[in-house]
């Protein structure tokens, strides 16, 4: 299953936390037509670079699927940012 939601938390110096839920599903839905339009170009680029386009697509899809449960948290002094992908 590809990630559907990302939660971005921003914490400022005043200890206020802004939490944004990003619906990735909408992003994927917007990107699908673009990917379809660009697919011939991607296909040609893959062939020029001697990369199997189907294998490239398969690996890209696997990376997308594997992004689930990724978590990155960075805190500097009293500020911080956290990104969780579900």
């Amino acid at each position, binding site marked *: 299953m590809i990630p559907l939601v990302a939660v971005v938390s921003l914490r400022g110096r005043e200890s206020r936390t802004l939490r944004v839920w990003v619906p990735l599903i909408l992003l994927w839905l917007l990107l699908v037509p673009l990917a379809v339009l660009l697919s011939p170009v991607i296909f040609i680029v893959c062939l020029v670079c001697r990369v199997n386009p189907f*294998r490239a697509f398969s690996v890209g899809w696997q990376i997308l699927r594997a992004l689930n449960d990724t978590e990155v948290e960075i805190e500097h002094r009293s500020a911080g940012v956290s990104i969780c992908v579900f």
Partner: protein
Amino acid sequence: MNEHRRQILQMLSEGKISADEAERLISALEERPSAGSSQNVSESATKARPKYLRVQVDSEEAGHEGPTKVNVRVPMQLLRAGVKLAGLIPAQALHRANQAIHAQGIPFDLSQIKPENLEDLIDQLSDLSVDVDQKDREANVKVRVFCE
């Protein structure tokens, strides 16, 4: 186990043990494997394959207001997919990258990174924990890398 049973039966035939003793010994032998298998199950449960790679960095620099902390959780699936991505790199580019790495004096061959090698590595990662602790006048840095 059959060998043990045979020994018991031989001792019985030689008259070294009575029939009751032989029966008790055989029943004890029969109980032993079930205890062993339950132990194996608990061992395999505790040694489950790791799902995530965790990298924690805790840095405190002198003269700064507060510490800097980094906490990254990477799914193992992403590592596997990343290695597969490395497999897509054209041979010519891989050769150039290898040359650049060798020029830096690092004896590492990128073409040797294969998904099957990574599986072996991940199997061993469950026991791995890297702790780096650096303390000096200017900074105090702690790095932890482990699997969970």
